[in-house]
């Protein structure tokens, strides 16, 4: 049996090689265009179209367009990469039809990159080399000096300027086995050479040989290829990316999400072949246990443990479910992975299914993600056609099939027992646990449910080993976590960092800091089930346990940055109105509790609050937390409890002073016109929907407070900042 799988995999890769060779894209100029919901929304489809037209009319045959998934650099999309063989890849941001024309005529036809449009202004296209120094949690921790600084100094001494060699601090490359101690890893782009240095002499060698003589230094070279090599090849020059460690998202933004051939070319299905080849499901479970992989859906339960429990059930008809419901209203990492790297999720699921010996797997994907559904469907069909999925998987004798089931817009269906009800075609109401789904799940059979990101990590764990994966994270949890970074942060998007990375590193180093350079107020993690981490705790390491201790949760990965312009009472109200609406209504503490708590919050934000409301709020919150049936109700009070804990004074301000410092709560603010600043241009009066602003031309205007509805229209249209929100 072992042999047949190996043969199958060999034949598969040989065939892929042939197909890709026949396409003859080697040595051509590649134009890489992202294609995911977000990229398309930002205009990627037009960009693709414009490039095709340009290529066609130029008659050149040495240019190919390559569609990829999304890298997660949301605020700069659409992103286009241009790879001229032998040159550093150049990425452009916010490309539209006009920019396409410029890129084509300048960069592609004349070889002159468009400096002003380069992503994050990251590289000087003339730079020849880039050295990325790992500054992760392990590399060089015991070194007395920073190798990066030594390198900088030595370069200066050698008279090599920044225009030739670029130096960058990066996050863990996943190249270390355990503690690196005084060694540190250095990646050289575009040569894709990985070095390990452990002394000043080593650094000197890099300068003398690699930089000055363009010679490799074999004695320092690490032969292992870091897992996100391909990713760094393309995106390593952008600080948004090189501070990340891409394991789950290793292929996002690199592969064509619809092409099985490309996935196989980049090592796809090797992990499945290895797993099947061992002919020992327990081996898979052991690797996952060693990896200390904890579920990425929010709960953080050890995946290996879950699989072990499922595999020990006497009942042999077992199911595996991929939870792609992604209900957190500020998170989109699962969508990103499903759309950008669907084959990895398929492979991860198949390995999991083999581990627990499941006969059938289901994707539960929310109907709001049509492109994700389409891409998974496509991946399933192509895998079936290739003999990877279905009867006799890869010639192993084991059979398994996958099916997609759609959600229909109910947050509670992300909860595992509700999700099972939904797949069964019922109203998605949760059940009491235990029995847990691993004992009695779908149609009463043992069922393991895991999150999309959990599955995305599985092929990497099998390929690189459980110990390797564990070495990336913390003592308690292995690997990385993907966050959807949004809110008042400069660079929004998907960010993957090793567990244990300090929060402030995510917000400031990767996210570029708070928008408009305002002070950071808090970081919200875990969405409506999570809480607030106040700015003073921003040193905290992201991991399941520290976040829970701080009164928040890791959650599925939403991370919202809040500045001084945000009102904590208002945001808590926002989350609570979400959970209140999404409560399925089955149990009373959740159904009634959320409603009553929301009423109290509304009372406070409309200026009618009393101090005794705070006690009532807290009591209700605890009640709801302790007595609700499922995680929805139990976690719903988290935003309130944590804001009460860290920002109680804001509640008191709303209640006692009737004041909202952030000027968010409409009932507590009003608008005034500063007579000195007003020049009487009449714009505000003309824009006021209730016509409550009076004054003649060139005279200061006045707002009639009794009629004002506080819509803020005048505030927005005034070009002289004369309208004040007080």
């Amino acid at each position: 049996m072992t042999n047949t799988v190996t043969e199958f995999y060999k034949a598969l890769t040989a065939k892929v090689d042939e197909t890709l060779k026949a396409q003859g894209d080697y040595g051509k100029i590649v134009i890489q265009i992202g294609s995911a919901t977000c990229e398309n929304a930002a205009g990627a489809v037009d960009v693709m179209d414009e490039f095709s037209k340009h290529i066609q009319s130029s008659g050149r045959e040495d240019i190919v367009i390559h569609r990829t998934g999304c890298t997660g650099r949301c605020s700069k999309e659409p992103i286009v990469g241009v790879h001229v063989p032998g040159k550093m890849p150049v990425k452009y941001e916010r490309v539209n039809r006009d920019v396409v024309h410029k890129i084509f005529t300048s960069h592609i036809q004349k070889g002159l990159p468009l400096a002003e449009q380069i992503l994050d202004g990251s590289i000087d296209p003339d730079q020849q080399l880039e050295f990325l120094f790992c500054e992760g949690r392990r590399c060089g921790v015991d070194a007395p000096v920073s190798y990066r600084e030594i390198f900088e100094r030595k370069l200066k001494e050698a008279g090599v300027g920044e225009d030739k060699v670029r130096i960058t601090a990066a996050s863990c490359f996943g190249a270390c086995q355990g503690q690196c101690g005084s060694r540190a890893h250095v990646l050289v782009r575009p040569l894709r050479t990985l070095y390990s240095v452990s002394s000043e002499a080593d650094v000197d060698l890099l300068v003398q040989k690699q930089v000055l003589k363009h010679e490799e230094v074999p004695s320092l070279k690490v032969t292992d290829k870091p897992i996100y090599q391909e990713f760094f090849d393309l995106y390593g020059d952008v600080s948004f990316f090189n501070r990340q460690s891409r394991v789950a998202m290793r292929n996002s933004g690199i592969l064509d999400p619809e092409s099985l051939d490309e996935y196989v070319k980049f090592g796809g299905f090797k992990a499945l072949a290895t797993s099947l080849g061992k002919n020992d499901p327990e081996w898979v479970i052991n690797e996952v246990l060693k990896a200390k992989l904890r579920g990425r859906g929010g709960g953080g339960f050890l995946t290996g443990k879950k699989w072990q429990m499922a595999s020990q059930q006497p009942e042999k008809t077992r199911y595996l479910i991929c939870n792609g419901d992604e209900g957190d209203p500020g998170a989109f990492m699962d969508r990103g992975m499903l759309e950008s790297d669907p084959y990895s999720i398929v492979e991860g699921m198949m390995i999991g299914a083999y581990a627990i010996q499941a006969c059938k797997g289901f994707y539960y994907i929310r109907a709001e993600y049509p492109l994700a559904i389409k891409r998974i469907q496509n991946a399933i069909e192509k895998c079936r056609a290739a003999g990877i999925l279905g009867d006799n998987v890869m010639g192993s004798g084991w059979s398994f099939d996958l099916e997609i089931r759609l959600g229909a817009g109910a947050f509670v269906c992300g909860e595992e027992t509700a999700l099972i009800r939904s797949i069964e075609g019922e109203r998605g109401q949760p059940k009491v646990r235990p029995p847990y789904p691993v004992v009695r799940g779908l149609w009463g059979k043992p069922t393991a449910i895991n999150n999309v990101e959990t599955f995305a990590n599985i092929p990497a764990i099998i390929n690189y080993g459980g110990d390797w994966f564990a070495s990336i994270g913390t003592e308690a949890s292995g690997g990385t976590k993907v966050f959807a970074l949004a809110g008042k942060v400069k660079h929004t998007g998907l960010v993957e960092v090793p567990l244990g990375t300090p929060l402030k590193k995510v917000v400031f180093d990767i996210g570029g800091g708070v928008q408009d350079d305002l002070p950071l107020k808090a970081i919200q993690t875990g969405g409506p089930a999570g809480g607030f981490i106040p700015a003073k705790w921003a040193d905290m390491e992201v991991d399941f346990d520290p976040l829970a201790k701080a009164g928040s949760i890791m959650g599925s990965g939403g991370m919202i940055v809040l500045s001084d312009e945000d009102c904590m009472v208002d945001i808590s109200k926002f989350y609570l109105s979400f959970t209140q609406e999404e409560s399925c209504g089955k149990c009373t503490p959740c159904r009634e509790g959320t409603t009553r708590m929301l009423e109290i919050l509304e009372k406070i934000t409309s200026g009618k609050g009393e101090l005794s409301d705070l006690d009532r709020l807290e009591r209700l919150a605890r009640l709801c937390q302790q007595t609700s049936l499922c995680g929805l109700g139990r976690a719903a009070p988290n935003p309130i409890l944590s804001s009460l804990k860290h920002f109680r004074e804001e509640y008191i301000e709303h209640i006692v002073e009737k004041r909202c410092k952030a000027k968010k709560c409409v009932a507590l603010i009003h608008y005034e016109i500063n007579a000195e600043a007003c020049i009487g241009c009449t714009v505000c009066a003309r824009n006021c929907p209730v016509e409550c602003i009076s004054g003649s031309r060139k005279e200061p205007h006045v707002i009639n407070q009794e009629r004002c509805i506080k819509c803020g229209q005048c505030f927005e249209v005034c070009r002289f900042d004369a309208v004040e929100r007080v």
Partner: protein
Amino acid sequence: MSHAAANTDNWAEVKAAAEAVLPEHIVAFIEQNAKNAHSESQLIAILHLVQSHFGYLGQEQMHAVAQLAQIPYAKVTGVATFYHYFRLQPRGKHIINVCMGTACYVKGADKLSQRLMDELGIHFGETTKDMMFSLESTRCLGTCGLAPVIMVDDQVYGPVTPAEASIILEKYLKKGKLPKASEAKA
């Protein structure tokens, strides 16, 4: 397991009635599915098909589904009303989805939606009298980088200020009137 069609002595009649309401591909899906194990679990999938064909789930269609799939009507409506994605009322020509996700909310989606409600004179979940617009709220379109965003039909706009929202509406109103003008000519 599926309720056997043979249990009903007027099956031909039942089937004909359902076929008069449902399009062919949905009838085919239900019949094909009836042969599978756990066929009742596909109810949500069937309702998705019905909604994408008719734009909403009408009583008549739900009744036909209940009959043809041999699932109690109470259960069909129970499921249809549980999930937010299903609409029980016809919708307007253009669907305006305001993102009320966290990222959009902290960037002013509340103001934006207020403006849209004022302009259209309807609340979330409602449709204008002329059947031109339906206003809906959605959770995170996954384009938080463009927050605040609205999606009109399949087109995403962002970042949108309240004033820009009015301009966008204007655009669709004009577009909507165009075919009428050409009709008048013909």
